[in-house]
């Protein structure tokens, strides 16, 4: 028990000392995760809305595929990403392997089904009279979609937050596509895995605490947003 307690103390000391290594790792994590979430939101929210609002053949099959993709293990995405981004792969020329951009790309693939699926569910859960009212008031399909997303903004925001939570806490993609290069592609999760394996328990704990703080901050913001929605 002592070593856990000592680990917490050391972690606190390490964070308070503003160790540049620690904060660089935190910054890299936030950077790749925020970029991936932003791209996934830009693509996923309209896509989710489109699937929810349109009637087309194969919609149920598409929903099953999206649900399955939400459960896709991160190492599988990492593996596929590696296959695509490695020199012999179709996207090898972009030289994204072992770069923060490469990690972001993998995290984007991870976040996209979550954003699409949860946006779709959020819109399908809205009052059916909303769509009728938009059409009655003379909205074009684009104006309807915009209004519907505005009405469902809290649920859509929650979808984005869930996706962010998923990407910032994953380790498989960051490890396989980033390579855990110190001062370049090392993220909080890959650093925790490495430092713990090395026996550097306090650094792992310090990063774990930062990771938890980020999750707490994001969820706290969501809570405040939800509370103010009346």
């Amino acid at each position: 028990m002592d070593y856990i307690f000592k680990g917490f103390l050391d972690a606190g000391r390490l964070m308070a000392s503003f160790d540049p290594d620690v904060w660089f790792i935190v910054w890299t994590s936030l950077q790749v995760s925020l970029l991936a979430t932003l791209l996934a939101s830009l693509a996923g929210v309209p896509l989710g809305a489109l699937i929810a609002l349109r009637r087309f053949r194969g919609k149920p099959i598409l929903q099953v595929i999206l649900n399955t993709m939400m459960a896709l293990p991160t190492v599988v995405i990492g593996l596929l990403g590696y296959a695509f981004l490695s020199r012999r792969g179709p996207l090898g020329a972009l030289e994204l392997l072992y770069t923060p951009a490469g990690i972001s790309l993998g995290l984007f693939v991870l976040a996209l089904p979550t954003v699409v699926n949860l946006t779709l569910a959020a819109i399908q859960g809205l009052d059916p009279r909303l769509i009728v009212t938009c059409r009655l008031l003379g909205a074009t399909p684009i104006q309807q979609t915009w209004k519907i997303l505005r009405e469902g903004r809290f649920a859509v925001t929650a979808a984005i937050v869930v996706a962010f939570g998923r990407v910032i806490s994953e380790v498989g993609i960051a490890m396989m596509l980033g390579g855990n290069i110190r001062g370049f592609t090392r993220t909080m999760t890959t650093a925790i895995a490495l430092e713990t394996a090395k026996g550097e328990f306090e650094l792992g704990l310090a990063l774990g605490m930062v990771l938890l703080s980020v999750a707490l901050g994001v969820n706290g913001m969501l809570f405040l947003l939800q509370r103010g929605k009346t």
Partner: protein
Amino acid sequence: MTLAYTIKDLSFAYTVEPVLRISELEIGRGEIVGLVGPNGSGKTTLLHILAFLETPQRGEITFFGRPVRQTDLVTVRRRVALLLQSPYLFHESVLSNILWGMHLRGVKPAKARQAALKALDLVGLQGFGHRYARSLSGGESQRVALARALALEPSVLLLDEPFSHMDRQAVQQTEEIVNRLCCDNGVTVVFTTHAIEKVHVVAHRLIHLWQGRMVPTGPENLFKGVLKNKGTLFDTGNILVQLENPAARGDYIVIDPSGIGIQLDGTGETPPNTYSGTVKGLSQENERVRVVIDVGEDVTAFLAAGDPISGALRLGMHVTVAVGPYAISVL
């Protein structure tokens, strides 16, 4: 008279079985039309078709003299306003709710705001502009939705059960608005209602719908009364009608003439909804005979012209009338 709508050979189905079939219907500009009929008769479906929310599988609709195509839907919808029975208000202020429709039409903000405030004033909700729309009562929400519709200055105003959540004062106000819109601005108004007395007060013309079809004189055997015994009994004041399925609410019942049987002996009265009465009217209508029997209420039944009972019936004859359970609808 300029026509707002011309409908020909319309057929509409949600699944396979058509729920609305109209061979011909014309509604004039500035006309107030009341749609009446029991639940499931197609009133709301017809309103949705007139609002261009639903597209019939068959038939032709012209709107102010022009055939309506799929590509014109947004344009024609902007000339029509439909007030839903239970309207949806956006999660924003009352004023923002009213302004959005005008914003879509490119009305300048200052002019739109002026029109929105005027519409609120018209429905008796002055000072409500900054209230959060979702916190309003059912009646207030309906009036906000009416204001939202009026602010758009539509050529056609469609109202689905407009008086259902309103108090007496609001009903009177709405009647006045409808009359003013039609007389002063030439707006066509079509509304559905269960309050049949209201139709006669407000409408220029009635359209009776029965099982998705227009019927010329309205449903036969329409009786006003009250529900009793937890909705299992309907009392017209003159006869008691046993209901197969308890009804939660309803001020009228309709008895489908095709579900009425006549016996000549005039003796038995034991099974539910069996009444003794005297034949009050007999008339031949094409292939059928219309029989009116006084059982406390005047009940109309139709018999085939070749039916032996129809040949034996005489005025003043005592008969027994049996009403089948599925012939009864509560309105």
